């Protein structure tokens, strides 16, 4: 038996679901999974179907692709079109729609855009192409940022001067705080992000318990991890406790990885503010390069348009990212917006709530979806009770807003 199989045992999962049902009483509980990896597992394994109807999982903003605003993507595409540039990024990002196309479109139009698995691959490309400028478009939370930091430290140590980083790294705590401060949403607890916690540890989540009085359980990525995490939250509430607990002890140390944190602070500093798709500007929620690495900062070396672009009117990624709407409640879900023709970012990455729901969840939840749409008990923002898809063409277009 593979280790993972133990965490996918269907009988154990059903038994845990039954315990959660027995202990959760009648009240409606809303628990947010912060991380996109959890969202993916939840849909893939049908975990919602194992939970009682009064325990609702709300999908949070933890997919790094989903939170990149359109204007930042346009900036990257502009850099990719600069003469002599080799533009590198992770594969998911290539399909994310900017206001006038994606990086894949830019590649088709002649830009040298290459997919890499690691920023260290971008460093190799820079070493192999000393007469070209190689740009790495960095995205991701604290899990991914250490690899960018190490790459920059290596580039500096080895005197490589033709590598540049377009930094979009974000941090997990500020958006959690923004969500907790949002009046739209009342949450009862959080499933904390397992892999981000590998780097940051579990202590940064203490503000959720101390300031907001909501329990947090850092969980792993197998189905039983998530069900056990839900059970631990329900148990905390039941027993009148409110703590940060670590269900994912086999990987996450309470203090995280101190070496990774040290590397992060050497290379990055906090930006004063950063725009998150759907959540707007959040102060101190993203990283930029320290002055010592300014020569490697693509935003300083290249001229970028810096135009803010609002999402198409029909796009409701913001509500989905905040957990206010379920993916299928967006009026273009599965019609104008599909993984093949994404309008919003949540449909692009397989970790995005919309893509995960589209790929795994829409059939199992179809009946509930029909019930909600028929009753109109949930507003999907179009205010006319139309089912998905009743959207004017101009509502599908992005809207340039203002220069940053």
């Amino acid at each position: 038996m593979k280790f993972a199989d133990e965490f996918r045992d269907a009988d154990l999962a059903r038994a845990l679901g039954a315990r959660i049902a027995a202990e959760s009483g009648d009240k409606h509980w809303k628990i947010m999974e912060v991380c996109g990896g959890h969202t993916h597992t939840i849909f893939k394994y049908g975990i919602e179907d194992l939970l009682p109807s009064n325990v609702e999982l709300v999908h949070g903003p933890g997919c790094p692709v989903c939170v990149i605003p359109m204007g930042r993507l346009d900036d990257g595409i502009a850099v990719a079109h600069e003469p002599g540039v080799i533009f590198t990024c992770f594969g998911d990002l290539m399909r994310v729609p900017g206001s006038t196309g994606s990086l894949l479109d830019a590649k088709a139009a002649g830009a040298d855009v290459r997919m890499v698995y690691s920023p260290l691959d971008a460093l190799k490309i820079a070493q192999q192409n000393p007469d070209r400028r190689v740009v790495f478009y960095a995205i991701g939370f604290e899990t991914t940022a250490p690899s960018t930091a190490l790459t920059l430290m290596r580039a500096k140590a080895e005197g490589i001067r033709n590598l540049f980083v377009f930094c979009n790294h974000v941090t997990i705590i500020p958006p959690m705080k923004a969500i907790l401060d949002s009046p739209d949403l009342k949450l009862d607890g959080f499933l904390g992000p397992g892999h981000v916690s590998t780097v940051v540890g579990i202590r940064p989540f203490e503000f959720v318990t101390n300031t907001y009085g909501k329990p947090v359980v850092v969980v792993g990525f197998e189905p039983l991890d998530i069900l056990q995490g839900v059970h631990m939250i329900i148990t905390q509430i039941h027993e009148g406790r409110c703590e940060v607990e670590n269900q994912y002890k086999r990987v996450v140390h309470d203090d995280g990885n101190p070496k990774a944190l040290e590397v992060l602070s050497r290379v990055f500093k906090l930006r004063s503010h950063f725009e998150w798709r759907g959540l707007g500007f959040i102060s101190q929620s993203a990283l930029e390069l320290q002055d010592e690495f300014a020569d490697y900062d693509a935003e300083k070396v290249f001229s970028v348009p810096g135009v803010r672009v609002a999402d198409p009117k029909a796009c409701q990624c913001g509500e989905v990212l905040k957990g206010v709407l379920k993916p299928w409640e967006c009026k273009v879900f599965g019609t104008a917006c599909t993984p093949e023709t994404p309008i919003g970012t949540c449909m692009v990455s397989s970790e995005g709530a919309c893509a995960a729901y589209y790929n795994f969840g829409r059939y199992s939840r179809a009946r509930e979806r029909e019930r909600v749409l028929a009753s109109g008990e949930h507003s999907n923002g179009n205010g006319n009770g139309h089912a998905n898809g009743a959207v004017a063409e101009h509502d599908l277009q992005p809207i340039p807003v203002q220069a940053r």
Partner: protein
Amino acid sequence: MSGECHDEVCITCSDQLLAMVVSDVDVPARIARGTIDGADVEVSIDLIDGVTAGEVLLCHGGVALQRGLPLEVGA
């Protein structure tokens, strides 16, 4: 998703850690080589001290971020 995606989940651009069994360590280059689901890979070990062959590393974006239990990959 692209055909290269691991288990339909983003392996590099997302928040995943993948378990690698270390086959050999190049200490001066700060690199460990090994396999992830049968594929040969090379990761930086700058953030983990004292890596040895046979152990399991949890990796993201070409960098080992944590040691894993041997069981993490079914070994």
